[in-house]
């Protein structure tokens, strides 16, 4: 429940602070009223310190004014308040072994939603075996391959399968980067024993992207002991890496060696047929009817990885749902235009003048000169109109860049080109070509 007292304070702060100050420092705070005290919880020490130094005094004044008989003291702490129904935190806090064990798996990532193809059938089969017999078949199982090929999906699929078979299993998905960050935090807060106890109590550890341990000696040391402890207790460990572990520089030899004790499987980039099947499968999950030519179009155009493939499909589906349109090939091409075009180049006045001069076979200095012959005037007008369309320069600035001309000359040029584009197909064509050259 939000605090009415805090809400009224925020309402007043809205008229005193800039929008940015409000959204960066005030809105992340969570307020709890307790025993005549308003406790403000900041998500981390940076927010707390900023609020403390810049805003706390004013907040305190507002609380005194607004509190009447309610809370009148204000305190600022680091903390979070998650409603009971909220998703579990991404990482179970170390030292919370007595509380019910929260797994943190994504329920969408299962073996059913994993599309099998030539590129991934072996790691999928190994993952399924491990999921059916945790701690008894391949231990550890290590899956390696490039970014966005489905490694994380397989980790979650294993975890979800184990939980389906045994809902009380202690399964944890963890990214290596998170392991490192949590360990540093535990060291800073002097809670490393709880940290160790927590990770060594897990029954199935799914740890993603172990290449992030490279060159972090202290983390490698800690992970080495966690890993040994789990394996000795016949707990299951499944790891992923973006390359063959022996090729990860900065990883200790004893870890590389341990990682290869069990089974190591490569996952390859999916071939076209698999990419198309992935798109179709995802569309089914979204309850969307997707014509096969659209699935092929997306599969052909997005070759790099599965995550981007799914992102592209979501964009098409979101567009179709918003407009109420059927998904056709033309529709998909249109919806994905933004994703497939190159980024905008930074367009400068100099670049516009150079491009127009080259296109019209005149010199840049002609555009600056006082010459008023048609062969120079028209390109100059086109360049001025393009400058207005593609840059944020003011009209006086544009005029100045074209030999010190007045802003009314720029305005006239823009109007003239606009009229000519309506009446003269050649000029319209030239303008569009130049626009395309400059903005693609």
């Amino acid at each position: 429940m939000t605090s009415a007292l805090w809400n009224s304070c925020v309402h007043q702060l809205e008229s005193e602070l800039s929008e940015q100050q409000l959204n960066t420092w005030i809105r992340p705070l969570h307020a709890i009223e307790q025993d005549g005290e308003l406790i403000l919880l900041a998500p981390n020490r940076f927010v707390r310190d900023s609020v403390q130094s810049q805003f706390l005094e004013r907040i305190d004044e507002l609380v005194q004014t607004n509190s009447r008989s309610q809370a009148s003291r204000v305190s600022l702490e680091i903390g979070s308040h998650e409603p009971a129904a909220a998703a579990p935190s991404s990482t179970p806090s170390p030292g919370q072994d007595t509380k019910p064990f929260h797994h943190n798996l994504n329920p969408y990532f299962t073996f059913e939603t994993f599309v099998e193809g030539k590129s991934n059938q072996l790691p999928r089969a190994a993952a399924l075996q491990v999921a059916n017999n945790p701690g008894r078949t391949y231990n550890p199982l290590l899956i390696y391959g490039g970014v966005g090929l489905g490694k994380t999906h397989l980790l979650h699929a294993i975890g979800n399968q184990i939980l389906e078979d045994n809902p009380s299993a202690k399964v944890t998905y963890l990214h290596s980067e998170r392991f490192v960050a949590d360990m540093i935090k535990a060291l800073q807060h002097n809670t490393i024993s709880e940290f160790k106890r927590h990770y060594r109590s897990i029954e199935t550890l799914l740890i993603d992207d172990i290449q992030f341990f490279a060159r972090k000696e202290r983390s490698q040391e800690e992970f080495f002991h966690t890993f040994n402890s789990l394996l000795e207790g016949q707990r299951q460990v499944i790891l992923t890496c973006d390359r063959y572990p022996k090729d990860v520089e900065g990883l200790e030899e004893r870890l590389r060696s341990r990682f290869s004790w069990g089974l190591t499987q490569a996952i390859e980039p999916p071939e076209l047929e698999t990419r198309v099947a992935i798109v179709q499968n995802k569309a089914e999950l979204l309850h969307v009817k997707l014509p096969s030519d659209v699935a092929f179009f997306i599969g052909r155009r997005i070759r790099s990885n599965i995550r981007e493939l799914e992102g592209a499909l979501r964009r098409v589906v979101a567009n179709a749902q918003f407009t109420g349109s059927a998904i056709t090939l033309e529709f998909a091409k249109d919806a994905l235009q933004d994703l497939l075009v190159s980024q905008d180049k930074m367009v400068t006045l100099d670049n516009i003048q150079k491009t127009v001069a080259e296109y019209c076979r005149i010199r840049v200095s002609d555009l600056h000169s006082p010459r008023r012959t048609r062969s120079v005037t028209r390109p100059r007008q086109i360049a001025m109109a393009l400058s207005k369309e593609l840059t944020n320069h003011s009209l006086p600035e544009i005029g100045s860049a074209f030999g010190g001309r007045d802003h009314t000359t720029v305005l006239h040029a823009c109007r003239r080109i606009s009229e000519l584009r309506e009446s003269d197909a050649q000029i319209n064509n030239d303008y569009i070509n130049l626009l395309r050259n400059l903005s693609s």
Partner: protein
Amino acid sequence: MNSSPLDSAQRPLDIVLRPHATFDTFVSPEDHELVHSLKGLARATGEPRHYFLWGRTQSGKSHLLQAVCNHLARTGLRTVFLPMREFAAADPNLLNDLQHLDVVCMDDIDCVLGQGGWERALFRIVNDMWLGNKALVVSASCKPGDLDIGLADLASRLAGGLVYRLSSLTDEQKKLAIRLHAQARGLEVSPEVCSYLLRRYPRELKKLVEIIDKLDNYSLALQRKITVPFVRSVLAGT
């Protein structure tokens, strides 16, 4: 000789109620789908909850991100807006534990890319928000594939959300944006004044909005309507 309004002793205080960046004052006819989708973040529970908005400067990215925060904060969600341009020299641990919030909006993330510590911190928050099924909205000047990111995993995760390109505003759209901003301050600005501003002053929306704020203050103090001659006299020399 008439004294300039700039010299007036009736200069008002600069403390005024600031109209918030809202979805209603966001102008871009092509981006209705995006606005509709972002508004729905309050009730959305399934995927996708990650957005990547890209476009040139002045295409409205910061406005939209703040509109998301303002809109969702009113529904009781905890939100944060992080202008990464201002934090480029700060400690990346600034992002620690933000996954406990409901919505994280990070503007101009390209300003911190290329720095290992920042990329890892971004990677952690992107992963954690994804795992907690929390909403994440980030903006940059170009699409994920064109970002200068050292960490391929981060680029891949950013591209896995809903990616939208924001178009730069045309002059007509800028005029509408000026009028909406003025209306939010209870001010009427004629089309002639809008056209005059666009002809004579920097055409960046941010600057134009600052000009409107200034004109509002002076119009209030001097009890004058905002006309072209008034604008000219207030802004003389700027």
